[in-house]
């Protein structure tokens, strides 16, 4: 697990103190106050969200620092609501895909494509849709923002859950069948625990990406509708419109505080908790730690609370499992006749084909009325421009960060300190930092076609860095010693030790970074600073402009073309590299 290293051996006086003796009384009090405060905050935020839309116009977003904590809260709440929706989606859709072969045929490729679609492009459609759903209420716009975050989070979570379900160890599967587990017990006792570690990791990655979209989706302009939901993203867009550098800096600071708090209060406890679900037979030496998790676990009342909560659940499951246990279900269901199975398959495939044909016809009739083939050509050219940017920037970022990452990774003392920072930077929404760069470009009158490009990898390059650090620290010490003994140096050392050692990690990082960069191009290729608008020719700015103009046909075209580019890029470059790394460079 690449992401889950952290300050593992860090000295934590609180936890150590707690470890030695009985539970101190103050642990109860502290834990209670923290949880109570969280509950109050959630209720406050939820109350605000259900306000009518008019209230938004009555109290527009202001650059008053006193309001900032509230904005930060609203932003965070949106993140977690989207996460909840993503989890529900994951548990239902991924389970369906793993249990039903017919559903699998459709869901798995769909998830694969959705993972590569630039979600910012969806905003046009979703804002219109959700505002229509809740006319005149803030809730509609809130839902649109939350949906935007959801679309950036759900797919990889569902994918990881599906893969976990497919790789349940055979012996544990046999135990649960032998004891006649009910489906619910099977889910809670076997499937969910087994999937938890990789799900938590994917939730982490999703949340990191999510901050980017929450900032981008709070201040939305679609056609002539402009909505600014109270939140950090809107704060920044107001600050940008007013060219208020100080307010931008305050917003950036608030974002940093949120991410640190979120890391300490949510991410770390969850990772520390999920460690017990790691499917391993020997205890690892380094275990992720969290002071909050230790605190909550040790406070007596959280334990009794969780027991109280567990009781009704337990009785529920007893009620369902209370039927006399059927001895040895020899076969769960009589197998349908093979001919019948084939007919069912055929029917299903026909249904899919008909739906597909309908979809194509719908797309064609929608797009052909509004677009010409000239548009397609133009968009493809713009796509090539953005592709060029992505390739050059990933290459540049690799050239810079691979040597640095290897250097850090080989020095455990440094790696331990810098790895959390790299992870923090990866989670930090880079679009928050754009105003500084844009102001500089405007001031120095630089060519936007070139100088806007670095913004695309600004936030995503860190994925390369922290994956390379993880890879370099995972190079076994006997290999390093052997290399030292035989005096491997310079290019030979890179070629035969370092690059093969980090390659699988690098590919993971670069794949994430390039996917993120395509997405970022939508906000990075067209930026403003006050009334100065900068634009780089590319697919990202095309989509951004079409969104602002409310031209849904062009947005659809842009998003489709970008998806095709991303998928083609993944299939022709990253996937073969990944396979190669899996096959040849795995340190068994």
């Amino acid at each position, binding site marked *: 697990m690449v992401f889950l290293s952290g300050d593992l051996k860090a000295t934590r006086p609180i936890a150590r103190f707690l470890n030695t003796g009985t539970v101190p009384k103050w642990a109860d009090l502290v834990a209670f106050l923290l949880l109570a405060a969280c509950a109050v905050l959630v209720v406050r935020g939820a109350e605000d969200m259900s306000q009518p839309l008019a209230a938004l116009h009555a109290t527009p977003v202001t650059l008053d620092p006193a309001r900032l904590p509230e904005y930060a809260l609203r932003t965070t709440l949106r993140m977690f609501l989207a996460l909840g929706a993503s989890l529900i989606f994951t548990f239902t859709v991924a389970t369906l895909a793993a249990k039903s072969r017919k559903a699998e045929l459709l869901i798995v490729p769909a998830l694969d494509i959705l993972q590569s679609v630039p979600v910012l492009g969806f905003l046009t459609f979703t804002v219109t849709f959700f505002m229509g759903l809740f006319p005149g209420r803030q809730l509609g716009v809130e839902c649109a923002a939350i949906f935007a975050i959801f679309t950036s989070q759900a797919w990889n979570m569902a994918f990881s859950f599906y893969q976990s379900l497919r790789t349940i*160890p055979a*012996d*544990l599967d*046999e*135990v*649960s*069948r*032998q*004891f*006649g*587990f*009910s489906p619910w*017990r099977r889910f809670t*006792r*076997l499937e969910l*625990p087994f999937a938890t570690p990789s799900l938590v990791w994917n939730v982490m990655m999703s949340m990191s990406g999510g901050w980017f979209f929450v900032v981008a989706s709070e201040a939305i302009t679609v056609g002539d509708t402009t909505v600014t939901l109270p939140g950090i993203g809107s704060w920044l867009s107001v600050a940008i419109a007013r060219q208020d550098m100080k307010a931008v800096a305050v917003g950036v600071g608030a974002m940093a505080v949120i991410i640190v708090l979120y890391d300490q209060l949510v991410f770390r406890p969850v990772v520390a908790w999920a460690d*017990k*679900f*790691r*499917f*391993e*037979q*020997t*205890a690892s030496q380094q275990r992720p730690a969290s002071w909050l998790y230790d605190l909550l676990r040790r406070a007596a009342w959280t334990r009794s609370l969780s027991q109280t909560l567990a009781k009704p659940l*337990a009785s529920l499951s*007893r009620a369902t*499992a*209370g*039927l006399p*246990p059927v*001895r*040895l*279900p*020899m*076969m769960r269901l009589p197998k349908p006749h*093979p001919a019948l199975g084939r007919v069912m398959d055929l029917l299903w495939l026909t249904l899919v084909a008909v739906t597909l044909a309908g979809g194509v016809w719908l797309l064609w009739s929608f797009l052909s009325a509004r677009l010409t083939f000239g548009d397609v050509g133009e968009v493809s050219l713009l796509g090539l421009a953005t592709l060029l940017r992505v390739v050059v920037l990933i290459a540049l970022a690799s050239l810079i960060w691979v040597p640095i990452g290897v250097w850090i990774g080989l020095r455990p003392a440094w790696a331990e300190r810098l790895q959390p920072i790299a992870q923090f930077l990866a989670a930090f929404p880079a679009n928050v930092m754009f105003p500084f760069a844009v102001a500089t470009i405007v001031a120095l009158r630089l060519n936007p076609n070139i100088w806007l490009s670095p913004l695309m990898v600004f936030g995503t390059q860190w994925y390369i860095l922290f994956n390379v650090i993880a890879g370099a620290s995972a190079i076994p010490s006997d290999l390093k010693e052997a290399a030292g003994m035989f005096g491997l140096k310079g290019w030979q050392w890179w070629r035969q030790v370092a690059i093969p050692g980090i390659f699988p990690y690098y590919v993971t990082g670069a794949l994430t970074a390039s996917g993120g960069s395509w997405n970022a191009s939508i906000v990075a290729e067209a930026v403003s600073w006050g009334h100065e608008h900068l634009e780089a020719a590319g697919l990202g700015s095309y989509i951004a402009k079409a969104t602002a103009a409310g031209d849904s046909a062009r947005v659809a075209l842009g998003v489709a073309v970008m998806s095709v580019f991303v998928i083609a890029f993944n299939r022709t470059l990253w996937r073969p590299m990944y396979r190669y790394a899996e096959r*040849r460079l795995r340190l068994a």
Partner: protein
Amino acid sequence: MTCMTPVQAPLVEAKAVRHLYGKAEGANLLVLDNVDLTLNENEIVGLLGRSGSGKSTLLRSIAGLIKPTAGQIVFPPRPEGPTTVSMVFQSFALFPWLTVLQNVEVGLEAKGVRPDQRRKRALAAIDLIGLDGFENAYPKELSGGMRQRVGLARALVVDPSILLMDEPFSALDVLTAETLRTDLLDLWSEGRMPIKSILMVTHNIEEAVLMCDRILVFSSNPGRVVSTIKVDLPQPRNRQDPAFRDLVERIYAQMTRPDQAPAARDGVFPGMGLGMVLPRVSTNVMAGLIETVHADPFDGRAPMSDLAQDLQYEADELFPIAETLQLLRLAEMREGDLVLTPTARRYAEADVDARKSIFAQQLLAHVPLAAHVRRVLDDRPSHMAPASRFRDELEDFMSSDYADQTLRAVTNWSRYAEAFSYDEGADRFSLEDAV
């Protein structure tokens, strides 16, 4: 069946069980062919055989985990109520996220037993099996032996009539395995376990003789019961007892009888004998075994049971090596002995290069797949051929896993023999580096 025992229905009967793996249309692997088994009250029965002899499949059919392709598993009605089974796994199969106590309780929980009852019974089972003090430990904190004790406690706590054990001690080291066997036998003979019978799968001949009252010896490919051996030695049994050693020898001889060897041995299968599933046996191991048998005290002929003991091999590990030597005409198995051929004795005395050429001769003469690959490479002007082609050919006869294993085995032997070479990246055979 003697008339002394009171007439009582058996616990379970397997009748003409047959099982095929693989798709309905494609290449099938017959793992169980017409197997009958009767398990009576108060006996430990061992299913002994090589890997691939279908003994685990039979066990899983009785456990209700597999539905056999044909035949029946019958639990005759008994006065005390329905017969229940519970299973102990080779890999322990513990839930790593549950504590020892929770792992033991899991089966009771699934049955809907009340929590206080559950706790009481689980603690009793933990106590019985010698796990006190470990209730709150997670499996990863335990040694292998302790983990298997958890597996046993979990199986026993649900009060099964039959305890099924699938190679329960084979993942443990020698000492731990012995302790666990003794503990289990003690509990059994003292009648402290609620079970009526034990059915265990093993490939360890000594283990079977040590524990079982009756041993069913399975042949492999396809799995059939070739003999049933009653073990009348009194418990506790002593491995050094001449009668014990005698029985072990006899079973070795049973298992090395010519009709025990894989059916495909001499090209019985169509297609130039290509349909033979080959085990992945390293050439170093083959050389080592030849040298051992060639040297004193064996001088060319060694009893398999002595070899297994000397070399710390289990029968299941030793048989594939011996069979590969037999396939290459470097050795023969006669009455439980491994006898080197004159070629093998020459091999033992030769230097590295001469050994390679002897090995190459035997390989190309007696392994049809190796000869086939070599012939194709010789015929082609480029002297190259994609490996996938041969893999596809093999898949006409066997499952893709076996095809892969067989091709890998031949690849390694050919590399050693320098008969032809293989490029992993391109997945291609060639004569390039060979010759």
